[in-house]
């Protein structure tokens, strides 16, 4: 499919991507693909208890994450944004520690990375993005300098009331927010047509007067360009934008899921369309941007990276139990302190 503006075009005169940038995008996608498939294998091998794969969503994630300016923007993810995290240059051991069950939310620093903690309530973080974005407005940045909040959610999450509240708030307040929907066709077992009334999530934006566009979520360049222009639109003080990236979640929803109960492999092959990584590789080859040696090198780097991350998370010991008590509040309560003391005495026999 092609990029389609649903309400109004949000365009800018940004230059086309350089060859260097195109190659960088490919390298990122290859790294994400390899880490993602490896993480599923890690789960099978007992290295991690669970994972939410994103096979097929690499273009949507890398393309959008690559457009984020880490010096001023802030991303509010859900649980399936590994590719965004990688494209933004997060500490991936810290990121993967959530899936290792080391710490809910991850072990990276959200303030430094500009990537809010991973959280599992679908649509929970969409309103946070609006609040953060309104904070940018209140802080009175000069036009064109403002930070933009990017919030990621799925077609399933779009059924939550919080998404309505968030879009309405953002539109009323003209908050600089990009609502980035990855419509991967499924919310666990429920297909989009039984999830989303009104044709698409992007179409809903019209009801709030928010410009929106649907983009081919399997085309990394299209996703990048749409996100870049949405960010520019927000930065210029024009309020929020909705982007619905149409993609497909190949394979299971999570490592605990059995997609065979709701679709066949044949359906998956037909509906999923062209593999976004393969498609981009072909394009780079056709345009003479990259050659086989480059792809081989990208793969080698991806493998090296995966190995380092796997070693990193294998080395992550369990967190000291005292953190359970120490990180609830900035100012702990007496009851919590005495519970911590009792726990220490009873578990460590001090």
């Amino acid at each position, binding site marked *: 499919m092609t990029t389609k503006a649903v309400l109004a075009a949000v365009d800018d005169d940004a230059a086309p991507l350089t060859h260097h940038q195109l190659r960088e995008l490919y390298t990122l996608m290859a790294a994400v693909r390899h880490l993602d498939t490896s993480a599923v294998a890690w789960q099978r091998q007992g290295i991690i208890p669970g994972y939410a794969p994103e096979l097929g969503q690499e273009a949507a994630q890398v393309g959008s994450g690559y457009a984020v300016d880490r010096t001023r923007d802030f991303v509010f993810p859900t649980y399936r944004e590994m590719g965004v995290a990688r494209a933004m240059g997060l500490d991936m051991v810290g990121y993967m520690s959530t899936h290792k069950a080391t710490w809910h939310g991850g072990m990276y620093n959200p303030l430094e990375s500009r990537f809010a*903690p991973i959280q599992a309530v679908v649509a929970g973080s969409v309103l946070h993005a609006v*609040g953060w974005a309104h904070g940018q407005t209140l802080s009175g940045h000069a036009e064109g300098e403002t930070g933009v909040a990017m919030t990621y959610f799925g077609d399933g999450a779009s059924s939550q009331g919080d998404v309505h509240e968030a879009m309405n708030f953002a539109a009323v307040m003209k908050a600089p927010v990009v609502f980035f929907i990855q419509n991967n066709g499924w919310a666990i077992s429920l297909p989009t047509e039984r999830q989303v009334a009104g044709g698409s999530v992007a179409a809903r934006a019209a009801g709030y007067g928010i410009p929106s566009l649907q983009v081919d979520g399997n085309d990394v360049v299209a996703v990048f360009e749409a996100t870049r222009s949405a960010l520019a639109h927000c930065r210029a003080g024009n309020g929020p934008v909705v982007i619905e990236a149409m993609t497909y979640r190949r394979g299971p929803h999570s490592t605990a899921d059995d997609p065979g109960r709701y679709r066949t492999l044949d359906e998956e092959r037909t509906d999923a369309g062209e593999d976004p990584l393969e498609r981009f590789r072909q394009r780079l080859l056709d345009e003479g941007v990259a050659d086989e040696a480059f792809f081989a090198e990208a793969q080698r780097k991806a493998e090296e990276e995966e190995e380092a991350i796997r070693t990193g998370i294998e080395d992550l010991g369990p967190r000291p139990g005292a953190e359970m008590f120490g990180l*609830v509040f900035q100012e702990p309560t007496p009851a919590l302190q005495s519970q911590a003391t009792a726990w220490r005495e009873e578990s460590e026999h001090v």
Partner: protein
Amino acid sequence: MSETMTALPGIEAAAAGVQQLSMQQALNRALDEILAENPKAVIFGEDCGRLGGVFRITDGLQAKHGEDRVFDTPLAESGILGMSVGLAVAGFHPIPEVQFDGFAYPAINQIVCQIARMNYRSRGTLPMPITLRVPSFGGIRAPEHHGESLEALFAHVPGLKVVSPSTPNDAYHLLKYAAARPDPVIFMEPKSRYWQKGPVDLTSVDAATAAHDGGADNGSNLTGARVAREGRHLTLVAWGAMVARCLQVAELAAEDGIDVEVLDLRWLKPIDAEALATSVGKTRRAVVVHEAPLTSGLGAEVAQLITQSCFATLKAPVERVTGFDVPYPSGDLEDEYIPNIDRILFGIQRVLEYRRG
């Protein structure tokens, strides 16, 4: 506080000293000073801007501090609380309002799953200095959902703190104190007490500011319970609007020679266990009074804390006088539901007449 600060409607101009203010005025005054002292403080909710809130707690604040500091939101509680999270991440100190206690329910997801957990989830890097103001409890013959007592629900959630003032003075100081905290505080305002006047000591404003800077107690013991009345024979434990009622009961009991101590718990989380131990350690008898339903209410928590510290010296099991396990009734039945003077006196009687079987 700056000398040049103009007074808001209904508040006399004097900047310091003791003034007679209603709780509504005291809260309004506190919010006004918080905005003046903390440039990161923002107040928002339904109708709190131009109207000044349906209870006028934010009266005049938008006109004085501007629409960036005090603003109206669309009518959506989850939106208001979810937005608070993002503002806190952006470095602001949100002071959101839900218009009535019962409308905190639509925001429970954001309060429990997000606000209460963000500090923990982010390993302390994203504190949530959010003070949620909730006009709380019954007593004003309001429609359904306008008189709920949610303290046990909030207090049960790890990551939240809960406080409820009972006097204009405490309303003023506790709100300033709560708004200066780096953790989320649910501030439960006893709406039936909004219009009662009482002395408010405005001289310790600087001390409250010190608490904001240093995180320390500001000298007026804002972190714990308050002995509202000293007594020898029995302790009534209460909070919010029930404190005033218990004081009335204590006067009546005194006529019969029963000397009642009234402990205003103020903080419902953390509960001041030490104050309970001190008071009941002295009186050896206790009755907890609350408007919320009996079952799994905070009265049970208080009773357990007392049992733990005073078991050996208690002369009777801790009694509870509470609302009933029924949905909050309409106005005509309100007086039957909220602990009244007679029911509290019966509670006292049960404790005084208790004999080991």
